């Protein structure tokens, strides 16, 4: 773990506003995406962050996990 479980969870939660605003933001550049597409982008990002946090498995990772 690169970050604590709590931090990972918070990181994923913090993605939500960005994903929601993505549609509006992209539309300024003339790119139209649907709700489902933005949900998929969100999901992909969440998976990416989780993968980043878990990989590479870090032996003393639990040390960072204090709360």
């Amino acid at each position, binding site marked *: 773990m690169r970050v604590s479980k709590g931090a990972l969870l918070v990181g994923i939660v913090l993605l939500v506003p960005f994903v929601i605003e993505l549609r509006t933001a992209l539309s300024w550049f003339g790119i139209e995406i649907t*709700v489902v597409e933005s949900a998929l982008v969100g999901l992909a990002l969440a998976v990416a962050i989780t993968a980043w946090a878990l990989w590479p498995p870090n032996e003393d990772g639990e040390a960072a996990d204090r709360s």
Partner: protein
Amino acid sequence: MRNAYVDQFPAEARVVKSAFWSSFLALAIGGIFGLVQALHRTDVLRFIDSTDYYTVLTAHGVLLAITFTIFFLVGIFTWAVTTSLDRGVVDIRFTWSWYVMMVTGTVLVAVAIFSGFLEEPPSILGSELYADVLFTFYSPLQAHPIFYIGLVLFVVGTWLAGFDWFRTWWAWRDENADERIPLPTFMVLTTTLFWYICTLGVALSILAFLLPWSLGIVDSVNPLLTRTLFWYFGHAVVYFWLMPTYVMWYIMLPKLSGGKLFSDPLARVVFVLFLLLSTPLGIHHQYLDPGIAEGYKFIAMTNTMFLLLPSLLTAFTVVASMEHGARQRGGEGYLGWLTALPWRDPVFTGMALAGLMFAAAGFSGMINAGMNINYLVHNTWWVVGHFHLTVGTAVALTFMAAAYWFIPQVTGKELWSRSVALGQVLLWFVGMTFMSNAMHRSGLFGMPRRTAEPQYQNFDFEPAVGTVAEMDAQVALGAVLLVVSLVLFLLNMVLTSFNGTSDSIPDNTYAGTLSGPEDAPEILDNLKLWTAIAVVLVIFAYTLPLASIVESGGLFGPGIDGRQLSLGADLEPALETLREVVA
């Protein structure tokens, strides 16, 4: 030896606990009503009549914006004063008496509002109970006298509470003549002072105008005057909700992050600025009102912008304190320290997320404050989106997170589940992101607030991106998540109170400071001076507008009767037919 608040001040802890529970009750009812509103407006699920919508909305506004917030506030403030002065209140019976007075006021107000659900509300004092006037109670909409009486009792209760805090401080000062006012007490006292200043407006509005008028003693009001007096109070009240939140951010967050408050002097400056500037800008809620010259609106706008300063300073201090804490915990790097914060702690995480949402709210707030851009968004759902970030999250989420720390402190019982608590604060954040974002965007294309069925016969809304249906769905989804979060919160509170007492409650402490009061000039503690300046600013900002409103509309207005605009049940079909004919 356990040294929680309940061990230090058992008597005060009972009052604080009662205040918290009163506030949770209001939150529970108000929150569920919020869901009813969200589902009804968006036409996802309608199980009340649209005419009852406004009863629900009045209850939601009053219970959440007034009852929930202020009951929690008096709890926190009583805790802050006694803890930081390290002494109990002067007379606990007095403390109970203001609490009981606030409860009585709330019950009267609630009776008046909830009678709106009855087919035939009972008559009291010669008129039918009625209070479908929303929490702003603009005349000539007229509520039943007990609605106004209840509000007065509630406010007088808070006045007495303020007196209680002052009295406790005076008693402490007699024994500690040369000491600086401890920071938490300083924050409480400055807040109380501007509360006194601003509530004079609403007290005057009710006692001199609305109550006599609802009792039939005078037969007219000046709607613009009572409205202006409401907003004289109405802006400062938002800072009244916010100040206990700031207290938490200043004196709890740094500690929870593992460090100290960056600067005590700056914290004092911030609270002094709030004392000075909270009231003389209420007219910024009236940018669109006729009868108020542009110049006065301009002054309110300028003051509003300057009131950004203490919030910007707070952002700095809070983030700097968190960074300090994170580095104490071994955090490194430019941003890397963020991962070292105690994200598993629901108290910390809840408050941090609340602060983040407050920053977002700052942006939409600047739009609102912009005298001209305001015309685009005034009274649209944009505004509702905005204040669900401020009072509905910055304040409410901070309070809920704080409760996870406070309830163990005042009961001596351990929290039922910290994991559920963490999930709860995260869920609130997500739910509010969905709801508030869609509300903001709906406001931009003109979706009105305070409207049971914002679906019109003769025109459609034209969103820039997406469809109205998508935004409605987003609001409904957000509202559902919020209520799930709310239920988890209440569940945690209830189950905690069934826990047995525990010995592992942390000590009752708050954050120390890196730069202490010795760095703050003595003059900052001169409350009389700041109060005098605050009063002068209010006089400057309000004398002329009020004088011109009275001059043009008369003190009691030109024969304006009270209105309770509803149709009897038998008239409703007639209206429907009429509408069909017209449409």
